[in-house]
């Protein structure tokens, strides 16, 4: 299941092919680049760290969303790639509206933007005569597609193949192990995208979190909810009475105490059995789809079904970070990413402790 080390990747860093690169993006736009993109500006947040992972370096990232930058600088990627601090982040406001003057200043040969948000997000870029590639967020299929697009644009097809194969392999393995799982053996899982002030739960429709919870042998506690996301109240959670609660990694101040100190939530089955966990924060947040997603799935599966799954997560993380970022994770790094200090004592969590 481990992501194999790619020796060839280092050798083919600069492709010799002179043929132009052509592919179709998520808005059906034909993207044509005369040569592999050397200067890429990424407006969507998770894409910046994905580009770093596809290239194994930060050299070609010349602009990114300020929110992406703060996530990188504050997280482990900031330690692995300290030079990321100097990458400009004023090419867009956090709300993804491009700043054309700043974009023109960093002179990218490819700009990446969200698809499906209308002309205000797109036209300023194309009107400035810049090459544009749009990506759609959400499902695993789309993630693989936009990772492949980005790799194609960068002229790194050999690297993306390994990354996609890894995703497919882990997915297939997990599907095989949960194939015979009866409905009543699937723990109900509640994922809280927000928990500090309001409580926001994930629906099932086009929801990535629900997708991998089901993949890992769970079922969505909020499956009767309409749409992808909704704000709910504690009473609704009491009614669902989830077996497992996952807290998002977006809210920095959010800890398990939010659940354990709440008079209602602390009575849920999840809290009573110690199955409340905060999502890890690695090269990117583990909640949404990104280059490290298979690690998220394995972490989730080991927690939901310790009887069915026994991935060696620490070893998986080490080899993945070696390939993705050319970095040797220390035990302290891993403990920090997995919040061992905060949740090492939770149910089934000792399996992730350093030997």
């Amino acid at each position, binding site marked *: 299941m481990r992501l194999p080390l790619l020796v060839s990747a280092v050798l083919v860093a600069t492709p010799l092919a002179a043929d132009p690169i052509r592919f179709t993006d998520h808005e059906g736009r034909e993207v044509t680049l005369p040569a592999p993109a050397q200067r890429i500006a990424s407006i969507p*947040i998770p894409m910046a760290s994905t580009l770093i992972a596809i290239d194994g370096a930060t050299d070609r990232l010349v602009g990114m969303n300020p*929110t992406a930058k*703060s*996530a990188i600088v504050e997280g482990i990627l900031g330690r692995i790639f300290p030079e990321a601090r100097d990458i400009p982040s004023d090419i867009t*406001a*956090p*709300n*993804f509206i491009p700043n054309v003057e700043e974009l023109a200043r960093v002179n990218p040969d490819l700009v990446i933007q969200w698809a499906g948000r209308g002309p205000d997000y797109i036209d300023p870029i194309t009107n400035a005569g810049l090459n544009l590639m749009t990506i759609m967020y959400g499902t695993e299929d789309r993630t693989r597609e936009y990772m492949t697009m980005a790799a194609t644009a960068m002229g790194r097809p050999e690297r993306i193949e390994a990354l996609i194969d890894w995703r497919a392999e882990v997915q297939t393995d997990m599907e095989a192990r949960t194939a015979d799982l009866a409905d009543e053996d699937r723990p109900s899982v509640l994922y809280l995208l*927000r928990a*500090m*002030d*309001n*409580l*926001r739960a994930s629906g099932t429709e086009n929801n990535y979190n629900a997708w991998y919870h089901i993949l890992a042998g769970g079922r969505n506690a*909020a499956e*009767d*909810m*309409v*749409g992808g996301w*909704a*704000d*709910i*109240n*504690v*009473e*609704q959670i*009491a*009614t669902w009475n989830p077996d497992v609660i996952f807290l998002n990694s*977006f*809210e*920095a*101040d959010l800890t398990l105490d939010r659940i354990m100190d709440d*008079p*209602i939530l602390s*009575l849920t089955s999840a809290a009573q059995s110690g199955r409340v966990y905060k999502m890890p924060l690695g090269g990117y947040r583990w909640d949404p789809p990104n280059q490290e997603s298979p690690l998220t799935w394995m972490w989730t599966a080991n927690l939901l079904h310790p009887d069915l799954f026994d991935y060696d997560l620490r070893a998986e993380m080490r080899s993945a970070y070696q390939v993705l970022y050319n970095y040797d994770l220390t035990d302290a790094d891993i403990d920090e990413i997995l919040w061992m200090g905060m949740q090492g004592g939770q149910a089934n969590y000792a399996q992730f402790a350093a030997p």
Partner: protein
Amino acid sequence: MSMALNQTSRRAQLSLRLGVFPAMAAGLALAMLYAISAGRFDVPWIRVVEILWTRAWDLSGSPETMDERIVELVRLPRVLLAAVSGAALAVGGAALQGVFRNPLVSPQILGISQGGAFGGALAILLGYHGVVLLGMSFVFGMFALVLVGFLSRINGRTEMLTVILAGMIVGAFFAALVSVLQFIADPNTSLPAIVYWLMGSFSTATWARLGLAVPGMAFGLAIVWLLRYRLNLLALDEAEARSLGVNPDRERWFIFVAATLMTGTSVAVAGVIGWIGLVVPHAARLIVGEDHRRLIPASALLGATYLVLIDTFARNLTAAEIPLGVLTALIGAPVFAVLLRQHFKRTGAA
């Protein structure tokens, strides 16, 4: 014939007015009981009564089981908070309409809501929650009012028109500041929290929040209640009021401060909930007439009942919480349209 009909309907109205306050109070009590028994978590109403009854006799104990905690720690504070907020917003609106002699005035007109919204949004952006959010929201609501007072005082006198204009200016300024905060907020973390909070909700109601909200609201309600006779005089035109020994300037500011206390506190604990201060006083006027001695308590009772019911819908219609501001506007706008037409038909006929 038509004259006779008119007289009987007048008499019917009169008899209605006599029993109207006990009826409104009973309506509020029923609405609150209904709200406490309704919820996404199934607690049979007989069990709700049992839980409340047991607690009433033993205030020292603490709720242990899930249904006890749901009723006592989730629903009870939420319903009470909705009730006092509804009363405060409605009375704030009624008082301001009296002072401005204009039935279309609402707390938004003084920029209070926008000021409070900015304070709360800023708190969220800076990563503060709970008491700090509450405090900042209130302080900026108050600050907006002080600005309005400062701007509208020209040559030692304050004209009604300048107050309204100053209120619009200050409101627009704070609304723009809220947009600035939304612009710079992190779309992953603070932006959704700000948007959700601005749309209004009681979903985070606790006894602690209720405890923070009640003093300000009660104080505001008390000021308006004490000034209810004066409101009748303030509603007269300026010269007439002065001749009756009223100092309109000073008493108006008492009302403004009271309205700010009530609106600022409600924005702080539940976000921006519009339309209550506009719709409820109109409905109250249809039932009890223009006299503020009756209008103020009627607005309080109706406002409390209205917001308790709206909030019950907001938390029960779907698994997802429906933002209160959306519901109050969706219901408030058409109801207000009907009320206005009735109002003009009646005043036009008289």
